[in-house]
């Protein structure tokens, strides 16, 4: 059987672009192989997937050299619609990937396009819906779906024809950790039971490395590393630290080798060396039971709370000394006309300078809460009080209305945001991180906001951009603005937030120091916390604990 995907010296330049998006890429993916594509923003992951789907160069134009075969079909002689018979493709933005009015019609569409009969279409739709957990959505209008639901439906449409090759560009970027894990489970089953070759581009590698057979890292459009997951992590430790998983970083900082591919492997490695990581993560046994003086943190960040919990001091907000809240929700309900109840009697206060992460499953009410704060929505019942709220919505591109970055803001504001050099660029030509910075600069312009809210700011962001965003949010909090971030990214929440509010069924089901919320969970937990039984959330703190553990042992 021919390779599921074969690239021979493929180079590609987008029309009008100065540099190559792909450079001499050589890659073979065997049938049934699970390959993860790694790399920073703009490294060429999406372009490679588009080339494999035949869209490059048929659809986008530009200069293409080399040879690419997807499922045995040469993309130079076969149209994307023909390649669709062997390759299912999912892009980043689910909004533009829904072409029909109902979920059932959306799933049926690719099968109908291939001329399947009614019975085969109906069976395929049911199976795909069951596999992806979207059976309850089948008769819903696609206009009424949330971002996470849209992404699962788009994935269903990509996989419904049981393709030989699945080309997936950040399929979990809009999903909560539970749905993300479920989706990866489906991909694994698809890969193992149906023999579908999976090529998955991801930024959050810790989610998917354990399922991968190989990792291909791209840098400036060229293959920088092509190895098994452990080989990739070893390479990343030496050449691309920004691509390390938190677990690999934890081990590297603690001076341990080899880097673990999964949580299970890390725990097994620690146990083999006699380091008890705490089997019952929920109660924080193991490390958490021991003093962790070295990890204490004065600013109330996650590490500080982790250590305070380790010392047995319960974390609580001191209500007596607290200033007037920057933002307060009291008994807030949002009940949609003719629809669901989104929020149920939410009581929540955020203090000036406080850093809060809002987490929860898709549809739990995180975005609604932020929209209420910014006055985009009015509660059905209850009140929302607070000063000026600057809200950065999920899509940073929505804030730019002009053809030049320089027309969006005065020159001094642009310079303050570090965007002066980009003044003559079109906002659509900015990278994801630059666009996020511009959006933040636009919403922060003017009077200093009492509260800064961000809705899923790290979606599709690489670690370098996340670190820059962390610095910016830290500065805002330091200047006295409360910062509230709705996110599915547990690692980012742990690094940023002192307090985490977990929403479930429209109300806070947990509201506590980040260390308490993210240390003991199965899904809402960082990889470091899962490895260390909740003793630390971040690799740096975990490594400090591990080093001390070795000394103690």
């Amino acid at each position, binding site marked *: 059987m021919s390779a599921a995907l074969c690239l021979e010296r493929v180079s590609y330049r987008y029309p009008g672009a100065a540099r190559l998006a792909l450079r001499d890429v050589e890659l073979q993916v065997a049938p049934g192989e699970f390959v993860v594509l790694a790399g920073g923003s703009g490294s060429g992951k999406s372009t490679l997937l588009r080339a494999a789907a035949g*869209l490059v160069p048929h659809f986008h134009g530009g200069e293409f050299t080399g040879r690419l075969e997807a499922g045995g079909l040469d993309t130079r002689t076969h149209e994307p619609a023909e390649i669709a018979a062997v390759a299912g493709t999912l*892009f980043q933005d689910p909004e533009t990937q829904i072409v*029909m009015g109902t979920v059932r019609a959306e799933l049926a569409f690719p099968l109908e396009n291939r001329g399947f009969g*009614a019975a085969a*279409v109906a069976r395929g739709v049911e199976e795909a819906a069951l596999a992806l957990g979207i059976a309850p959505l089948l008769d819903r209008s696609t*206009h009424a779906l949330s971002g996470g639901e849209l992404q699962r439906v788009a994935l269903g449409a990509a996989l419904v024809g049981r393709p030989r090759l699945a080309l997936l560009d950040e399929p979990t970027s809009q999903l909560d950790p539970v749905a993300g894990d479920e989706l990866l489970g489906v991909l694994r089953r698809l890969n193992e039971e149906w023999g579908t070759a999976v090529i998955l581009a991801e930024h959050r590698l810790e989610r998917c490395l354990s399922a991968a057979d190989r990792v291909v890292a791209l840098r400036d459009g060229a293959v920088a590393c092509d190895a098994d997951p452990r080989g990739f992590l070893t390479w990343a430790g030496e050449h691309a630290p920004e691509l390390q998983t938190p677990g690999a970083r934890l081990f590297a900082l603690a001076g341990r080798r080899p880097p673990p591919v999964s949580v299970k492997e890390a725990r097994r490695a620690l146990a083999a060396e006699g380091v008890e990581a705490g089997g019952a993560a929920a109660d924080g046994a193991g490390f958490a039971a021991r003093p962790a003086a070295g990890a204490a943190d004065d600013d109330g960040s996650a590490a500080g709370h982790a250590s305070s919990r380790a010392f047995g001091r319960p974390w609580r907000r001191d209500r007596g000394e607290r200033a007037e809240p920057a933002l307060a929700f009291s008994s807030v309900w949002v009940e949609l006309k003719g629809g669901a109840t989104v929020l149920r009697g939410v009581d929540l206060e955020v203090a000036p300078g406080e850093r809060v992460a809002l987490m929860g499953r898709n549809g739990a009410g995180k975005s609604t809460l932020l929209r209420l704060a910014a006055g985009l929505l009015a509660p059905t019942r209850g009140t929302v009080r607070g000063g000026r709220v600057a809200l950065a919505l999920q899509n940073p591109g929505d804030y730019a*209305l002009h*053809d030049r970055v320089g027309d969006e803001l005065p020159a001094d504001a642009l310079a303050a945001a570090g965007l002066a050099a980009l003044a003559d660029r079109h906002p659509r030509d900015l990278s994801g991180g630059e666009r996020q910075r511009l959006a933040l600069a636009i919403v922060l312009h003017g009077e200093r906001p009492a509260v800064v809210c961000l809705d899923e700011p790290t979606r599709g962001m690489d670690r370098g951009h996340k670190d820059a965003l962390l610095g910016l949010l830290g500065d805002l909090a330091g200047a006295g603005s409360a910062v509230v971030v709705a996110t599915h990214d547990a690692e980012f929440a742990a690094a940023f937030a002192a307090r985490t509010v977990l929403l479930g069924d429209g109300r806070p089901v947990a509201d506590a120091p980040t260390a308490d919320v993210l240390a003991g969970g199965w899904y809402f937990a960082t990889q470091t916390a899962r490895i260390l039984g909740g003793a630390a959330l971040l690799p740096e703190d975990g490594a400090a604990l591990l080093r001390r553990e070795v000394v103690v042992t």
Partner: protein
Amino acid sequence: MIYQCRASALHATRAAASSAWCVVLALVALSFEHPVVLGGLLASVLLAAAGARVARRVALALAFALPIAVAWALINPLVDRRGLTVIARLGEVPALGQLDVTAEATAYGGVLALRVLVVIGCFALLSAAVDPDDLLRAFRRVSFRSALTAALATRMVPVLARDARRLHDAQRCIAGAPAPRRAVVRAVASGALDRAVDVAATLEVRGYGAARRAPRGGGRPWSRHDLAFVASAAALVLIGLAATLGDWERFAAYPSFAAPVDARLLGLCAALAACALAPFADRRGIGR
């Protein structure tokens, strides 16, 4: 203007027939000039919208179209010099020369505006009452290019509407006065090409146009409503042809405006309205 399924005869009709009916109604409006006929057709469109339970949506579309119609009515007398009855002498205007506004050009501007409203009303009715999914499937059997065009036409409206809503929300998050609505519309319009490319790319990777034949066993029998709307469309075409050949509509805009109303004209209006609205009278089997 997003399609929503309702219990109506038009909704119960297959997309090929219902869209053809809407297009024929718009073509009929383009073939007549008499203001009474056009007024009758506009009333028919509104009654049809009420029959299809989308009157509010169509009325809203007409309200949005009103400035375009008014602009048309105002511009025509400025650019059309025909007509005998000068009602205003605006003197020498750079680039336009001597500008005399005539009563005939003014009246004809009103006729054009009315026609624009009827045509926009027909397409608003199509958007609100014809299932775009069915339309997409129907076009798939014709040709790939026309199908792709239809797909983009049917999908781009909701995609751009969502974009506009998001941009509007984003502007409300900014301190100070929000950007004017025209700036948002301009931004959405300038991004439309990129969005169209995204949607078209999705259609390609879903295999659109790969199979030239229809799915086996996918056809459904013609319902009473399918037949009624096809018959109505055919009757509208025949009446239009008969009216043109038989000179039932006596109308002249220039050199002097003449739009006599006689029994034959009123009969024409009644026939057009009856043909257009008759299919809505049958309410059996309209649920889905």
